[in-house]
């Protein structure tokens, strides 16, 4: 009885492979394998649950439309994240255009204010304020730094995979992540725990 070593096949890759060959039931499996992480990423980057869900639906639709051109043996997750990232950028641009168009409406009723939730203890309040400050600092960063930071630090993707996803070099990802990290760290220096 010998030990059989089979190459480890990702569940998502296997499901996509079957789906591209015409097995429609595999789409649900593909969804289960990718959706939680993808939705988490979209929620964190967009900071809006409704937008995140809409973008995820769009991402899966794009994958569905392009299933026939899926390369056999390719990895599906970097592709899904790349589509999601592109849709996020597209969506953000659209929103900017809409905001510019409707800027005259921005007044009392249209102002978006971010109010912290009601604290029930002083440390919770402090934590929320810190979180708010970190968020603000991240928002102020250029898109490329913020997305690299989210993918590496929050999604836990490797530098290589992030570089592949963002279409840049590993060195550039390191640099972007480090800059974002420095910016976030400065919040803790200004407001010590």
């Amino acid at each position, binding site marked *: 009885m010998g030990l059989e070593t089979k190459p480890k096949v990702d569940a998502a890759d296997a499901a996509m492979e079957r789906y591209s060959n015409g097995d429609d039931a595999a789409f649900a499996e593909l969804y289960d394998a990718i959706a*939680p992480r993808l939705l988490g990423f979209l929620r964190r980057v967009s900071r809006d649950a409704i937008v995140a869900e809409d973008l995820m639906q769009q991402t899966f639709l794009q994958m569905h439309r392009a299933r026939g051109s899926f390369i056999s043996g390719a990895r599906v997750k970097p592709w899904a994240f790349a589509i999601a990232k592109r849709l996020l950028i597209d*969506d953000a641009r*659209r929103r900017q255009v809409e905001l510019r168009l409707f800027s005259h409406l921005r007044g009392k009723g249209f102002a978006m204010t971010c109010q912290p939730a009601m604290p029930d203890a002083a440390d919770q309040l402090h934590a929320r304020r810190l979180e708010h400050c970190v968020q603000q600092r991240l928002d102020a960063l250029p898109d490329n730094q913020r997305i690299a930071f989210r993918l590496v630090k929050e999604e836990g993707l490797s530098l290589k995979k992030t570089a592949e996803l963002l279409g840049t070099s590993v060195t550039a990802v390191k640099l972007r992540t480090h800059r974002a990290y420095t910016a976030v760290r400065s919040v803790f220096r200004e407001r010590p725990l």
Partner: protein
Amino acid sequence: MITNLKTRVLSTAAAEPSPTRAAIKSRNKLLSLLAGTAGMVAFVIFALFMSDSRLVRLGGEVTPHHHLQRSVWLVVTTAGGALGVAATALWLALWRGRSMLGRSRSLLLYGTALTPICLFAWKVLCSMVFGYPMIEWPERPGLRCLSLSLLIAIGPLLTFLAVRRTAPVRPALNGASMGVAAGACAWGAVDLWCPVAALPHLLLGHALPLCILAAIGALLGEAVLKVRHR
């Protein structure tokens, strides 16, 4: 909420038919055949219609250098090298290996930039080695070659874009690379027809179309291949 979302995603996908791999394969074969035929038909019609003998019959001017005959070896060597470069450009532009994200930015950039340079250098080198006169033909500045190259290459370029369908990363660069690959194929065909080896002619009639096609490819790539919220 997650379950609702899943139901929504699955039902939206089910409502929209999408071709499977087998369907895409046969569609791509048909598209490739069409592109190849369109390129060849464009070449044959243009080359026949615009040949010197045809122009003479139509009352056009005969080039004073028409007595210059290229040796078969020069034609074979030049076209062979050009086809080799074109094959490499096609491989770079169309083959994605085992990644859905395609080639890296640097590879696409180098491929796009180096293809015209290699083709140009090969043509000049062959002319020098075979002792073919690289003299000016004032009546052939290169406009015919420019139009022929664009005419041959536009069909394949559109086919490449249709075959790729989508590029979530670097759509413009992918499009430019496809444009240059289509242009490189056209260069090989035009090279069989055009005997002029003067440098200004080569730059205007043979190299410029590749730059134009790269620009068209980049624009179309951004418009067609880019992933958009629909």
